[in-house]
């Protein structure tokens, strides 16, 4: 048995009085106020905080900058909010090896600006980079348009240290790009929404910043034509970096394509693109087109629902047409930024009951092809709606993994799929 002083004293001793405070309104997680906000300064302190909470039977929600705190289901309980903002050091930029080791609380923007000094980048265009932290981007598996060429975070993270609820600090992977020693736990933790362990640091492989880049835009007056263009580009020998389609219930579909290459490479590819698209009108576009995904979030928080849709690229037209039909029969509006990988951000605007029916319709239509619709933001009236949908036949195994790493359910209980 451990003879413990009050949890508050215990936490204070770990992180110091200045880094423990009662919560304020801004600290609420899905409407729930935690008892304390703890801001550890080292990964050992993170582990110690978790261990204290775990043995005291208290629940912990980790937080980076808080930019995506509404993602996932509401936790069943939040006692301690563990903020990683003080763990914000860039530990090592081994630029000649194209790797970086960084603490979880560092913002994407800060990381990218340091990398840029050596002409490099983490090939991720995450949401709100000025605020979003490395740890938060990993926990939510956020990815944007660069994913088409460089993969998502699971493909970019090569090492990670996590703190487990029993106070273990565990590292896996390493500092080299190629490494198959042991299980790939960085992938397991990426997208786990803080339910398995708290990410304290990560190692990423990097890519050179592009020499030049150019964005083009083209439109199509039907979803079928747009899909045909998109698939033709994907089936071509173009070496494009990103390809996205923007469409909505009101406007015809527009696509953006990004090339990153030498000047000669850009000109050659522009010619080829025009040839592939034949009569379709192609115009030069500004790089701002790539803000489209983030711009979807600038809207009325309480009347819309935003989610991540994942389908096969060849189902784009089918689903867009379904959305069109449903938007008329169920009276709602929609807007989507669809990446050619099949991952899209979809915003639905309508009455709460309508949104419930539409999400149900979407999911029942997606399930047969293995697609999914994960709700990331919903109106307050729908706070009880399950964010995830059907996790498939792997749920029992997922629960066993959770049980293995967090047997007492200390970390973000209830936030993940199937009540995990």
């Amino acid at each position, binding site marked *: 048995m*451990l003879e413990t002083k009050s949890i508050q004293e215990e936490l204070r001793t770990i992180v110091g009085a200045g880094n423990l405070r009662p919560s304020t309104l801004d600290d609420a997680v899905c409407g729930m106020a935690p008892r304390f906000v703890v801001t550890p300064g080292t990964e050992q302190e993170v582990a110690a905080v978790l261990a*204290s909470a775990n043995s005291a039977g208290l629940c912990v929600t980790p937080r980076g900058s808080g930019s995506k705190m509404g993602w996932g289901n509401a936790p069943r309980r939040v006692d301690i909010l563990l903020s990683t903002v003080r763990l914000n050091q860039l530990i090592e930029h081994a630029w000649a090896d194209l790797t970086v080791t960084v603490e979880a609380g560092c913002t994407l923007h800060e990381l990218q600006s340091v990398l840029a000094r050596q002409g490099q980048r983490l090939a991720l265009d995450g949401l709100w980079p000025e605020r979003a932290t490395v740890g938060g981007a990993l926990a939510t598996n956020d990815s944007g348009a660069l994913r088409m060429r460089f993969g998502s975070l699971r*493909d970019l993270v090569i090492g990670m240290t996590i703190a487990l609820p029993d106070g273990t600090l565990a590292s896996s992977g390493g500092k080299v790009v190629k490494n198959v020693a042991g299980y790939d736990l960085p992938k397991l933790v990426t997208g786990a929404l803080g339910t398995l362990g708290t990410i304290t640091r990560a190692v990423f492989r990097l890519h050179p910043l592009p020499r030049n880049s150019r964005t083009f835009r083209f439109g199509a007056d039907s979803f079928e034509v747009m899909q045909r263009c998109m698939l033709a580009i994907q089936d071509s020998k173009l070496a494009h970096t990103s390809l996205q389609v923007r469409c909505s219930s009101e406007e015809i579909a527009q696509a953006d394509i990004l090339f990153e290459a030498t000047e000669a490479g850009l000109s050659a590819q522009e010619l080829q693109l025009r040839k592939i698209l034949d009569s379709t009108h192609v115009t030069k576009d500004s790089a701002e087109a790539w803000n489209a995904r983030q711009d979807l979030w600038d809207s009325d928080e309480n009347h819309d629902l935003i989610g991540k849709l994942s389908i096969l690229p060849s189902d784009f037209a089918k689903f867009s047409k379904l959305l069109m039909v449903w938007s008329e029969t169920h009276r709602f509006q929609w807007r989507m930024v669809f990446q050619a990988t099949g991952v899209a951000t979809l915003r639905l605007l309508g009455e709460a009951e309508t949104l419930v029916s539409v999400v149900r319709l979407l999911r029942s239509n997606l399930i047969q092809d293995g697609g999914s619709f994960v709700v990331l933001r919903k109106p307050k009236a729908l706070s009880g709606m399950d964010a995830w949908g059907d996790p498939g036949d792997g749920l029992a*195994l997922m629960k066993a993994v959770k049980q293995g790493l967090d047997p007492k359910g200390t970390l973000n209980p209830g936030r993940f799929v199937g009540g995990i």
Partner: protein
Amino acid sequence: METRIFQEFRAIVGPYGLISSPEELHTYECDGLTNFRVMPQAVLLPANTSQVQAIVRICHRERIPFVARGSGTGLSGGALPVENGIVLSLARMNHILEVDLANARVVVEPGVINLDVTGRVQPQEYFYAPDPSSQSVCSIGGNVAENSGGAHCLKYGFTTTHVLGLEVVLPDGSLVHLGGKCLDAPGYDLLGVFVGSEGTLGIATKVILRVVKRPECVRTLLAAFPSTNEAGAAVSEIIAAGMLPAAIEMMDNLAIKAAEAAVHPNYPDCGGLLLVELDGPLAEVGELMQSVEALCRKNGAWEIRLAQTDHERLLVWKGRKAAFAAMGRISPNYIVQDGVIPRTALPRVMSEIARLSDEAGLKVANVFHAGDGNLHPLVLYDRQVAGQEKAAETLSYRILELCLEAGGSITGEHGVGEEKKSMMSQMYSEPDLDTMQRVRCAFDPFLLSNPTKIFPTPRLCGEKPGEYLAHPTERAGLAERF
């Protein structure tokens, strides 16, 4: 093994699907790492997923350990049978089930040969990117188990980058689907954990692969340097110039000689040979290849050749891909090692390998994926000479320690398997390994699936970690144990 169990197995797979005669079992007593051998009790060759499930259910009921095997080309003993266990060979499950090029997906059974995936989609100018040197014989199931790499993973990524979904028979015989044809299925990325788990988490029975469109143009440059140091410096400058070649391979003089003797690729006789492949749009590749050439010359390359035709390109690669087997031409025996270092540590590690090789009186040939720092030192020896085999083993482990000292890894693509499990505790701490094993216990609580591999000391599931660990509050002086 009891006769009734044999009978049950035979009823599942039929008389031709069960091998139990000692002479036939010999084929399965090792994989590509031949210095470890264990005779299995039986080898079963299931023809479909339900047969795999039925076999595994019996293993689970009877607590019989099992090892899945693809083509048996692995180099770390991953498919080495375990004592009193059976081997499940997936060789009969070798069908390509679905080709969906609109979405660049191909669905295969685990026994399909790596190169056959490319063969199937080649007419439409697609290819399956991971290309281990054994790709003409190794199976996709084995690639999934080992997270196989290859020369082109510098640009294209590893097996894990190209596997989107799996059907898996868990060690209790139940069936799960991890990942899928669509990306980001809700839930934990168990797919990411399974790929590269070396058969310790279950058996993949169906694999959804991503294939890639062939680039418009591929150019391969061969550059001869006085030594690997100059070649290494050229690699660093190519990377620093912001280029991401499809592959950068390096061979030292001994490796060149062996390749020349075996397949006559007509390599220049030099101290360090660099092979740089660029692919992409024609206009860009031409331009970048000029910079590569200039950087090679700047760093002392005295001969540079650009493979002009597909035939020349294939010959260049043939020499590289045959390099391991070619050692047989210059040495009776050899150990293939697989370590990784940060690329910048190359000169230091190379001179240290040379020193150790002198000290041990054994030759070491070096072949590596220079772009990502993956070294394949080949330690040459003669089993007939007393003590040489042991000395070669010691040297090869010492090289791995060098890799770890440089901040690298004990394996870049061959896996830990049986061979390197003792090195795992040098690379990872006890809590690191314990955390991995907690994940393993979630998949395989009775430790039946390839139970003796990867981990130096298998942790029994359900047991508490044996070692006393101070609670953090104890360390912080907040509490004490009594």
